[in-house]
């Protein structure tokens, strides 16, 4: 391919809209072009930021009732009759009302589940984006050290919480450094590990006071994401390493937070 990828090509790539031949062509170009790779990443981050910022206006509480009223009135008018048929109509209406109430209850619980799954999906996408950006960036981590006594104190005054880092890591697991980053406008510690040749990002943030304790796993674009909580912290680990190896590191980090390994204060 001559020159760089067009802005439309890059946008379509971010939107997952390229055909297989186009995708292969784009990937081939990206593998040798740092300018287009940086642009592609920028567009992915922009898409993610726009998606979040675009959900801006919440539906007023009474609007649903107002807009659905014509449908209800129309149904009622079309079913109107007199005498015996009227009685049957009222009975049917009562049955419908019961059915409607049951449906609303089911829908409400379903909606809560939907919201939770949307939030989980957004978190997975966001940590994936941040991890890929860290992998692709030519800049070293903001704190470059394999020493947990250097990495942890670096965050003092930068984030409104503290955390522990595990000691006694398995032989091929190394702490590479860390970044201060943001997830959903919240400051987050991004710890960078390597397991063999695979890179791992572990994001740590303070759990919002009213938030439920979450623990789930997901796969996204060949990467495995594990979200887990410990005390007041919520953490998300992402990597393309074998999920069992990732789980091993996650368990060590989780144990470190409970105070088994190291004290919570100090480094």
């Amino acid at each position, binding site marked *: 391919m001559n020159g*760089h990828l*067009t*802005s*439309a*090509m*890059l*946008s*379509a790539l971010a*939107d997952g*809209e390229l055909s297989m031949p186009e995708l292969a062509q784009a990937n081939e170009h990206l593998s040798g072009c740092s*300018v287009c790779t*940086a*642009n592609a*990443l*920028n*567009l992915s*981050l*922009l*898409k993610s*930021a*726009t*998606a*979040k*910022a*675009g*959900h*801006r*206006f*919440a*539906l*007023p509480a009474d*609007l*649903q009732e*107002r*807009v*659905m009223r*014509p*449908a209800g009135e*129309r*149904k009622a008018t*079309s079913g109107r009759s007199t005498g015996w048929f009227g009685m049957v109509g009222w009975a049917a209406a009562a049955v419908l009302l019961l059915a409607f109430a049951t449906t609303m209850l089911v*829908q409400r619980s379903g909606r809560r589940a939907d919201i939770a799954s949307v939030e989980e999906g957004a978190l997975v996408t966001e940590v994936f984006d*941040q991890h890929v*950006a860290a992998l692709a*960036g030519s*800049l070293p981590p903001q704190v470059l050290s394999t020493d947990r006594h250097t990495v942890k104190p670096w965050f003092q005054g930068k984030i409104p919480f503290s955390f522990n880092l595990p000691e006694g890591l398995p032989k091929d697991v190394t702490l590479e450094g860390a970044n201060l*980053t*943001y997830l959903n*406008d919240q400051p987050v510690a991004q710890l960078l590990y390597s397991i063999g040749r695979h890179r791992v990002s572990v994001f740590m943030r303070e759990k919002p006071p009213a938030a439920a304790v979450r623990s789930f796993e997901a796969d996204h674009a060949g990467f495995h994401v594990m979200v887990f909580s410990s005390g007041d912290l919520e953490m998300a680990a992402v990597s393309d390493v074998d999920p069992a190896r990732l789980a091993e590191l996650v368990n060590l980090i989780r144990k470190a937070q409970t105070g088994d390994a190291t004290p919570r204060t100090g480094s």
Partner: protein
Amino acid sequence: MTLLSWKRAARESVPQTEGFGDLALPFLPGLYNVATWLARNPVDAEDLVQETMLKALRGFASFEAGTNFKAWIFRILRNTYLTSRTGLAAKRTVALEDELGENESGGAVYPEAAIDRETPEMNLIRLSDRAAVQSAMETLPPPLLEVILLCDVEEMKYKEIASVLEIPIGTVMSRVARARAALRLALVGGATRESRA
């Protein structure tokens, strides 16, 4: 049983609304969000959503079951917006398709130099608050804003967007690219203004 012609006519005139609520309700928050972005005020947005739902209810019989209801109802919203007071005002003040430099081939419309090659923009997007992105979105002309809302916020595929906006897929592709280039410029411009202040 054979019905008398006037009875048959009466029965046929009753609009088919069965199942409308089940299909429409899940899209109501999204419709209101997009309507408020386009109308730029909540009162007009509520009117827009109410009129959309009324039109959708009236025309529900023409909706083919099994086809894309989301694209169908968003198309009604968009057409209702275009004929609304704010939509007509936007039409008069916003550059027309040709003036926007529509490029059906999907090639670069903005000069390559307009696309920042440096990492500060990436950092800006990563670090900037939601309000900065919202301000940048507010600067987009309606044809670009609506395409970015459908693509990024409503997560529609290009094919669905083409169906909502009644334009070719190539135009969707170039419009999305131009919207993003404009957003990037607006974000960089906003950051530059803040650093100068």
